């Protein structure tokens, strides 16, 4: 195993079982069966193959040729029913937290959880973002934390060895945060922003002219839709469009200024099929209503989300119970 073994602690490797076999009447001792079972459990950890973000790539590398987790008895399974270990490798979002909880509940006992990487541990630099759960221990209990951004394969292996030691010692103390209820309603509004004198350059047209303008460009060979996005200038809400003509290597950007209280603009999905997702994103994050869009609903955030996050009036660290604590609760937990 390569790890130093303390004499007082239960031993890790095969020799534990060897001693047991040599003892007569082995099975009657409760402690011994416990040791036997934990030896079996630690030697064939089957994780759920389940990656979230960057850490999952390093997890895959750990499973692959050079590092080869198979020699630890670790073989990834695609079904939670066949797994006893869940490696949370990546950032946990509120939309995903429900699924993670469901998957965790589908796993049979005994089961363990490794939180790999700083996002799964604490949310890392995304911890104060509206859609992110600051650490998976706000969702499911965690046994082992593996640090790194992303953790190297060596760190993953160290995490597995640490979990094996926990299993042998039988001292599982999973960590789960449960303090979330109070939301200070008054903190939910960001401070009103001053109107900034950013020069609004580019071709501005009226909202009503958008379909005709887009159709004209489409007929002139601008058939590649690059992006549709919006900018919240507080006094106006601007939508920017960019289309290209790949044959002539030309591009055209145009903008529309909308009233922030009632942002309505005609959709261009009939000219550009790609506009469907881009317009849904602008609706999701800015609340812009594209009239004539065939299926205007949220795309990135859950369907029941309140508010439009990229507006300047939306507070970045808006809490969302039960998985996302308020900033105060998070700070209190950090002090603990």
């Amino acid at each position, binding site marked *: 195993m390569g790890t130093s073994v303390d004499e007082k602690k239960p031993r890790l490797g095969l020799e534990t079982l060897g001693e047991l076999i040599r003892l007569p009447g082995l099975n009657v001792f409760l402690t011994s069966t416990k040791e036997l079972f934990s030896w079996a459990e630690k030697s064939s950890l089957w994780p*759920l*193959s*389940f*990656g*979230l*973000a*960057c850490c*999952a*790539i*390093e997890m*895959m*590398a750990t499973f*692959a*040729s*050079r590092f080869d987790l198979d020699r630890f008895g670790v073989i990834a399974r695609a079904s939670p029913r066949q797994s006893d270990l869940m490696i949370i490798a*990546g*950032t946990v*979002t509120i*939309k*995903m937290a429900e*699924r993670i909880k469901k998957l965790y509940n589908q796993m049979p006992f005994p089961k363990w959880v490794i939180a790999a990487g700083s996002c799964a541990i604490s949310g890392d630099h*995304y911890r104060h*973002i*509206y*859609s*992110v759960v600051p650490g998976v221990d706000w969702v499911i209990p965690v046994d082992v934390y593996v640090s790194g*951004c*992303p953790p*190297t394969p060596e760190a993953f292996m160290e995490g597995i060895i640490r979990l094996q030691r926990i299993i042998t010692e039988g001292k599982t103390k999973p960590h789960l945060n449960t303090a979330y209820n109070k939301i200070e309603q008054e903190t939910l509004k960001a401070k009103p922003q001053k109107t*900034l004198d*950013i020069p609004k*350059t580019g071709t501005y047209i009226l909202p009503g002219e958008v379909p005709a303008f887009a159709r004209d460009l489409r007929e002139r060979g601008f*058939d*590649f*839709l*690059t*992006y549709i*996005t919006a*900018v*919240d200038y507080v006094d106006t809400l601007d939508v*920017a469009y*960019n289309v290209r003509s*790949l044959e002539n*290597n030309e591009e055209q950007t145009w903008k529309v200024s909308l009233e922030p209280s009632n942002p309505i603009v005609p959709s261009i999905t009939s000219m*550009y*099929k*790609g506009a*469907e*997702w*881009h317009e849904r*994103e602008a609706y999701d994050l800015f609340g812009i209503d594209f009239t004539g869009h065939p299926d205007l609903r*949220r*795309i*990135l*955030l859950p*369907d029941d989300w309140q508010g439009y*996050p*990229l507006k300047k009036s*939306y507070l*970045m660290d808006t809490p969302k119970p039960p998985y996302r604590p308020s900033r105060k609760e998070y700070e209190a937990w950090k002090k603990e």
Partner: protein
Amino acid sequence: MEERVIEREFGEFALNMGPQHPSTHGVFRLELHLRGETVVKVIPHIGYLHRGVEKLSETLDYDILPPVYERDDYLSPTANSLAFVLAVEKLAGIEVPKRASYLRVLVAELQRVTSHLVWLGTFGLDLGGALGGGSTLFLYCFREREKILDLLEALTGTRFHTNMNQIGGVRYDVYASFDGDLSQTIGYLKKRISEYKDMLENNPVFLKRTKGVGVVRPELAKEVGASGPVLRGSGVAYDIRKNKPYSDYTEFEFRIPVGRNGDAYDRYRVRLEEMFESLSIIHQVMEGLPEGPIHSRKPVKIALLLKPPKGEAYAAVESPRGELGVFIVSDGSSKPYRVKVRSPSFSNIALIPYILPGHLIADAVAILGSLDPVFGDVDR
């Protein structure tokens, strides 16, 4: 919401695939409506990895942001930070030394090879038993990828989030024996990738699973805004490196591989050829690496307060997945007022509702794999 996951209505069978599924390449959910084994309608659901970098950017200084962007598209991290620093440099009018530009190209092209290797390996997993037990190709590709990661680790200290690009230059210079290490690796990779090419293109099962599967017409690809190998697989020779050159790409000679039919096989061919082209660019970078400084501003350990003038800028790079653009609006302060990331994967997987219907359910995995989405990039 979950209640209608498996239902029967009008003889159609709705099947839920993901967000936890080994072949969705991340957290992605497909609602497949089937008639028998044929897909008749598909509704993709994204947003399971929405981390709000665009909102986060509004609260952080410019110099802190490149490493944050590297977490977006985690298979080619430098492409993200490169797009961001190019946009800021455009906005603030910062010149970049030639050596820094060359080193940016070096790391970007190395990561293009690693990204395509991960793609090839996981595509092998998707196609399953056809390729020698499924995981053969995966294990091979990850073995070759480690060679490049070793180089990057020696160069920058990390395996793939290199933190190489900074506003005004790059953070690390090449070390003395780098040239030798690199040419050895390039030789090794060329040999190995040619082997995989022969292995796959003479495999009748591989050909049957990819040829004629998931055909994307060029008109559809353009209208949806698909870019990168997906667009080029459909026969449109559009590459940001050629059409809107950045970072001294004009000084290197390389081909743009183009497909003919727009099927999964053509997308595979484009990516495979691109790996050889990237290796050739890397060779040219090391041949012609100019002397000089690697940073036009002082290399920063702590954040300097960069305050670009008011205005807006858009810069795009060719990431392994396509056009990755960053649109910045500055209000003259040390933090961006608004950042929009135009991600290639977002537009590429918007193709799914148009190309999946009519195919068998087994092909759904092959088609999704051939589009090569990265969900950090889709959801941002």
